[in-house]
């Protein structure tokens, strides 16, 4: 029998509908794969086999009764940032030890309502702060990709490193992820998978552990563009429980695939040609431009002059919001408590023991930039710069550009415990240089694999769209995917 874990969501959907396979068989195939691979890859921080089999059985019953949902019987992994009722939800932090929510996040509830099956919770950088998944309390995740002829372990990117690694290693059919500065698109790029951060407001943030509320958005990581379109359709919704959720119907994204690019205008922003960018990333970008031209799109040079200020502005806005959001972890209402001589001592000891280094660093920066005397110089200035970054995009779109093509990352996957990156936090932050502008402007961004570098590691291109035009990104990415092909790691684990 063929390995069921190799089926895309679209293929599995067809076979389940035709009753060639059962949801229980499909789920068991994934549970077996996880059992064998997870001790090495470390993508899952908790596996929920009983729950998965119960959900799969229920799916088979619904399929038999002709009541199958859009994701009926499809086994998914869930990033540890999403609240899942009664199941480990810790944002991969020590401070949320033993937290079991009494409620379900809107995004995951939407997936279960459509018949999806939960396999377990996926590893991530602590509180989604990181670009390598190394800040997780549960340890690093290994990228299923290795450089040609090398045994060195690489990071899967972050913060959704567990999600990306699990999808690339066939340990789930698709995964939920979140993106505050690049946390869906960068790990997708490092693992040869497709990731989309939708427009701010497209997916409900209710029940997702908050990092930086004005930037956080949920989205899927999937094996191909079609699967990402299928997943986003189910994840997105209008939700009264999130006041920033937008009152717009969710379109059928899959219907956009295969549509012509004729008449489309693609912008190429000159500011994304950064100093020290590897030659092969420039070549990949040019290849992407050629593919889109061949498909009938017009390609134009554009300027987004405030691009270089996006990352520094982000490192004020995001830590400021994080320092406020993470104030709730005080050893009183949930999670870890370390006793102290009085209540303040208890707070300080709990937070010292519960948060990792990167999280503490960001809380400290946030606290400092919001403190008396510094608010105007840092926070207010950053929010004004953010207005200018968004205006850059608006001017480009108003001038007739339909979507923007850029590289997704400044490099392919780097090594676990890379000394140069570990020694300088700012170097790690530069990983998000191409992705963070999109969060600052609230736009949709998609990363799609486009080739391999000289080491044999995947590289991706990023497409940036107008607000709520995710369908345009899917149809454009589909063209790139058809030209580039799909990329799968050779199994060594």
């Amino acid at each position, binding site marked *: 029998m063929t390995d069921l874990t190799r089926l895309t969501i679209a293929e599995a959907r067809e076979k389940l509908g035709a009753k060639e396979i059962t949801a229980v068989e499909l789920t068991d195939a994934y549970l077996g794969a996880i059992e064998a691979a997870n001790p090495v890859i470390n993508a899952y921080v908790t596996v929920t086999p009983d729950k998965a089999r119960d959900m799969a059985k229920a799916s088979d019953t619904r399929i038999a009764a002709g009541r199958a949902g859009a994701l009926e019987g499809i086994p998914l992994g869930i990033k540890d940032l999403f609240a899942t009722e009664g199941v480990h939800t810790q944002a991969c932090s020590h401070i949320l030890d033993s937290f079991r929510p*009494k409620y379900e996040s809107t995004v995951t509830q939407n997936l279960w309502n459509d018949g999806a099956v939960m396999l377990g919770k996926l590893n991530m950088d602590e509180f989604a702060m990181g670009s390598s998944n190394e800040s997780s309390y549960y340890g690093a995740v290994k990228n299923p990709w290795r450089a040609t002829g090398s045994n060195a372990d690489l990071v899967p990117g972050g913060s959704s490193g567990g999600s990306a690694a699990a999808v690339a290693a066939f340990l789930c059919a698709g995964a939920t992820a979140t993106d505050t500065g690049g946390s869906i698109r960068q790990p997708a790029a490092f693992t040869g998978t497709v990731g989309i951060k939708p427009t701010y407001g497209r997916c409900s943030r209710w029940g997702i552990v908050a990092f930086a509320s*004005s930037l956080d958005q949920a989205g899927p990581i999937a094996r191909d563009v079609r699967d990402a379109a299928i997943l986003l359709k189910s994840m997105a919704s209008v939700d*009264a429980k999130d006041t920033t959720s937008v009152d717009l119907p969710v379109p059928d994204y899959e219907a956009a695939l295969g549509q012509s690019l004729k008449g489309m205008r693609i912008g190429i922003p000159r500011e994304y040609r950064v100093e020290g960018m590897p030659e092969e990333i420039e070549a990949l970008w040019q290849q992407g431009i050629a593919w889109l031209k061949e498909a009938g799109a017009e390609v134009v040079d554009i300027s987004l002059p405030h691009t270089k200020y996006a990352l520094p502005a982000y490192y004020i806005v995001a830590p400021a919001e994080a320092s406020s959001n993470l104030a709730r972890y005080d050893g009183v209402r949930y999670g870890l408590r370390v006793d102290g001589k009085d*209540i303040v001592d208890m707070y300080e000891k709990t937070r010292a023991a519960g948060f990792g280094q990167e999280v503490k660093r960001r809380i400290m*920066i946030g606290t400092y930039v919001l403190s008396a005397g*510094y608010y105007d110089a*840092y926070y207010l200035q950053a929010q*004004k710069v953010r207005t200018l970054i968004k205006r850059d995009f608006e001017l480009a779109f108003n001038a007739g550009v339909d979507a923007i093509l850029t590289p997704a990352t400044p490099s392919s996957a780097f090594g676990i415990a890379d000394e140069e990156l570990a020694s300088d936090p700012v170097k790690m932050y530069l990983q998000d240089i191409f992705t963070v502008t999109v969060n600052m402007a609230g736009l949709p961004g998609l990363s799609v694999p486009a080739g391999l570098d000289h080491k044999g590691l995947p590289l991706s291109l990023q497409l940036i769209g107008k607000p709520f035009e995710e369908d345009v990104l899917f149809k454009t990415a589909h063209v790139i995917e058809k030209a580039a092909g799909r990329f799968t790691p050779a199994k060594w684990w």
Partner: protein
Amino acid sequence: MSVDLATVKRVARLARIAVSEEEANRMTGELNGILGFVEQLSEVDVSGVEPMTSVTPMEMKKREDVVNDGNKADDIVANAPASDRNFFQVPKVVE
């Protein structure tokens, strides 16, 4: 702008994170690295620019001021490190 050791300790106190002397020293260097990086924002001309308050233009959603959820005291304290009869327990605050 840069921070010194005393400022780092004061910020740690504001953030309610206990730091050892060694950690505070390390953080001083790291925070100055980050502050040095964000310093370039000061060169942007922002005269006449409104600070962003909402990334997507939208009307603030409002709902009727009615009770539509609740009676979940057991659920709310279920994850507390220490609770007693639906109260959170904390160290003595008032002498």
